[in-house]
């Protein structure tokens, strides 16, 4: 009975991951992160992703503050923030976030203010979608570990 729980949860995880890869939300670099996780570093993926969230949210906040300012003109700064976001998103395999950041960056390079506002909104949207998906994944994994733990008592 408990065994079925583990299998079902694993199937849910697989399905979610497959969907995220299929949608292009994640790419193979996300799997690379998993290769860096082992018994000496069992929470590596979770920790890196959370640091990515912290850093990204700081950058997104700064971007919004810059753009809503009526006297905004510092497109170069926008570009620098976006370089960071592009880089870190790429490193963790957040492909869609990375791509929309690149598009946003192009608008900033053309000093296109409305384009930048749109770009920011799209990035925020994709970022939050990714974050929700990651939380769901982590939750499923947590449940799976618990179910597996109960099945094989020490």
């Amino acid at each position, binding site marked *: 009975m408990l065994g079925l729980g583990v299998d079902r949860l*694993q199937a849910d*995880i*697989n399905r979610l*991951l*497959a969907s995220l*890869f299929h949608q292009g939300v994640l*790419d*193979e*670099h996300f*799997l*690379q*992160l*998993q*290769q*860096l*996780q*082992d*018994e*000496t*570093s*069992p*929470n*590596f*993926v979770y*920790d*890196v992703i*959370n*640091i*990515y969230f912290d*850093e990204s949210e700081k950058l997104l906040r700064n971007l919004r503050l810059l753009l809503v300012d009526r006297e905004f003109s510092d497109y170069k700064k926008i570009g*620098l923030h976006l*370089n*960071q976001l*592009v*880089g*870190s998103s*790429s*490193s*963790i*395999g957040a*492909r869609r976030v990375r791509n929309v950041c690149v598009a946003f960056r192009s608008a900033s390079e053309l000093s296109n203010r409305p384009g930048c506002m749109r770009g920011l909104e799209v990035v925020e949207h994709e970022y939050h979608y990714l974050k929700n998906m990651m939380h769901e*994944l982590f939750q499923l*994994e947590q449940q*799976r*570990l618990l179910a597996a733990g109960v099945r094989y008592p020490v």
Partner: protein
Amino acid sequence: MGRDGGVSCLMRAEMNMMSVGGMESAPAPSDLDEVHVLAVDDSLVDRIVIERLLRINSCKVTAVDSGWRALEFLGLDNDKASAQLDRLKVDLIITDYCMPGMTGYELLKKIKESSNFREVPVVIMSSENVLTRIDRCLEEGAQDFLLKPVKLADVKRLRSHLATKDDVKLSNGNKRKLPQDSDPVTITPPLTISTESSPPLTISHDSSDSSSSSSPVEMFSSSPIDDDEDDDVLTSSPEESPIRRQKMRSPGLD
């Protein structure tokens, strides 16, 4: 594949300690047999990833967040000779290219200008596949140029180069052919392979599938990844990396 011996329970605290601008102390002379890498990257996420990549390959790592801090660590930031210099052992410097203040290229130049560290191999990492950039770095003496995001296979390859170099230094009559002694290197321009053209990810339902890079099923599994690469770095050829063969993203000096 070597593993980091220290079990880190306070992952986040440890990572923050090590990676946010600060520096680890240099390894003591007794650690001279271990490879010590200085990693330079302004991105916290990337510092953590590169640090882990190196540690998983049995390297001691000092991670800093800027070129200036790197020079400071090496004792190159002023004209006074650093008292620490006798004990400082750096076997490899790996640096991001795009950094505010001092770029990786500028850092590379400064290192190659120094008498103490010009022999230390310097590897440049960049998210952009720009031929002129790559050429410039290689001309300035960079050992290798890695495309970001850096993969496990890239670091393994670097590590195996370092291992063979050390071996030859230790044994006098060694006639083993080194990568740097081989025929003139042809640097093939990296193919710009967009990830759309990469083979579709296969979702395997077979949990015994050991091909970790293609199976999302292995995601989060707590069992150690069954590594299909040769663990013995002395005999494994850098060419063997299947990922590298597929992607061919890092030009390398092979």
